[in-house]
């Protein structure tokens, strides 16, 4: 499976200054810098998010309801099934909307969990150093040494293929990278004047971490997290291909693409439509991630 890759000991070369408050002019700079591509990406993303959130209003009904007699209906040929049906006659429009919801849900939730855990462990690791650091680094190294596909298949076989398990797996694939990156950052920030000064003034650790360290790594983390959402949505489809994606009949874009691949010669739409949707989404997210990175002026992969 694809892995998000970020520098290890090099860390993110984040903005090296403690970020000063933005001036009024700078505050709106980001809007001026939005070119056409960015605006299109934003609109696409907003529409997609709205569509999957409002799925029940746009295409009311059960996305798992079958109609064997109407299976493999092509798009735009039957008003009851606007985008056609799949191999058991389920409505593709409904499945696209609900599947997108599942894919986005996994992408966002897993990113949040993975980020929070990764950042927390990274900060602790970098700030406390010593044996705490050793233990956390060891766990991360054991996990990274295992081919993630094997780990994911084994976990899915033991715990099942529920939404929670998949979110957990996706988060698991996320945290070590964050903890490595953040640890490196914290190690270098730790010795910086403003942190040393805060310590000298008797600030306690929690205070220093919350007030001085975290704000300084917020920007790169935000950028990484944006990119990570797209990565996890791809990860979920890869796992679906290997038969350990979300448990059918619940749709996800990943299992829809995977399910339709064998019948591409007779029913192109089953795989192609979710693949197009997924491509649009990851392109929009990626474009915005790139833009955020440029605006926030952070260098991350």
């Amino acid at each position: 499976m694809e892995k998000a890759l970020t520098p290890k000991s090099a860390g993110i070369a984040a903005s090296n200054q403690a970020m000063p408050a933005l001036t009024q002019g700078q505050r709106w700079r980001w809007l001026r810098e939005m070119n056409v591509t960015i605006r299109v990406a934003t609109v696409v993303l907003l529409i997609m998010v709205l569509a999957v959130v409002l799925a029940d209003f746009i295409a009311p009904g059960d996305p798992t309801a079958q109609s064997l007699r109407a299976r493999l209906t092509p798009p735009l040929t039957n008003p009851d099934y606007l985008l056609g049906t799949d191999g058991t006659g389920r409505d593709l429009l409904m499945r696209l909307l609900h599947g997108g919801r599942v894919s986005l849900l996994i992408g966002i939730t897993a990113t949040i969990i993975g980020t929070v855990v990764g950042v927390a462990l990274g900060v602790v690791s970098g700030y406390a150093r010593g044996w705490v650091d050793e233990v956390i680094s060891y766990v991360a190294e054991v996990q990274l040494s295992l081919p993630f596909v094997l780990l994911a298949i084994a976990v899915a076989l033991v715990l099942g293929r529920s939404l929670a398990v998949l979110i957990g797996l996706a988060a698991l694939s996320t945290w070590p990278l964050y903890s490595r990156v953040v640890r490196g950052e914290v190690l270098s920030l730790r010795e910086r004047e403003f942190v040393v000064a805060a310590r000298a003034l008797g600030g306690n650790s929690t205070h220093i971490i919350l007030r001085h360290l975290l704000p300084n790594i917020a920007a790169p983390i935000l950028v990484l997290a944006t990119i990570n959402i797209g990565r996890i949505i791809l990860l979920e489809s890869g796992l679906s291909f290997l038969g350990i994606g979300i448990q059918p009949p619940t749709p996800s874009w990943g299992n829809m693409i995977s399910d339709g691949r064998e019948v591409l010669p007779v029913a192109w739409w089953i795989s192609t439509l979710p693949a197009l949707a997924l491509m649009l989404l990851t392109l929009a997210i990626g474009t915005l991630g790139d833009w955020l990175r440029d605006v926030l002026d952070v260098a991350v992969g």
Partner: protein
Amino acid sequence: MARFLAFRLLRTLLTLLGVVALTFVLGRLTGDPVALMLPQQATLDDYNRMRAALGLDQPLLVQFVRYLEGLTRGDLGRSIVFQRPAAEVVAERIPATLALGAPALLLSVMLGVPLGMWAAYQRNRLPDRLIAGLSLAGQSLPSFAIAIVLILVFSVTLRWTPTFGSDTWRHYILPTITLTLYPLAIIIRLTRSSMLEVLNQGYMRTAAAKGLSDRIRATNHALPNALIPVVTVIGLQVAAIISGAAIVEAVFAWPGLGTLAVGSIGGRDYPVIQTIVLISAAAFGIGNLLVDLAYFAIDPRIQTKAGG
């Protein structure tokens, strides 16, 4: 340096032990292969007899100790599916995966680093935007979908390339493209941003002020510094190679470690799974050690930090 190496080696060994233990427990939690092997007519007695013959009736700890004992003798066990030594079964598959993974990695570096540098120098101009588009596209579809589309277009419709297998160089085209896209995109992005970062550094401005030519500035000053994170990524790719290959190999019927790994989990062939994990973890350890050594080569000022 020697102390650093010794420390790293010890650490790698500890990691391997952790990996082996984790795989052992997790593998056995997924159930055993005996039910899969028996015909429908088999009785529960047959089942128990077969389990005993494979030593699967023993407590987990006993099985683990036996496995470790075997390891110290260099015995990785016998594959349940192939009925031959697991080491032999796994070793046969390594060349195919290397033959696919190495060119993919090489191509993504050979193309990704210069493209990323170019994009950085052309920041916000047309080439930068085109390259950004390319790298986004490489990360926008799951690899199995890309692979199937490539086969349908180039093999079935145009008949330019073979659909599957690994016989001639032509067979390498589609799988290599599929496997290259994702790391290529990552390396482009990484090189670009890390290059931009370096170009803003004081020493680059100093070099410019000293009147050094663009080219010398790029190769002697910017590149080495910008390459550090890229080298790290390459190190991490060594572990990702089996994961990435698992899907690409499955689509293109490529006889490598990836398909063996997934198939062995399907068949609960523990000795083979454990051997694959052991080898890939060792490769990951060695890869990272090489990365650390590469840091020295690129920039001798970097301090060796144990556990870094």
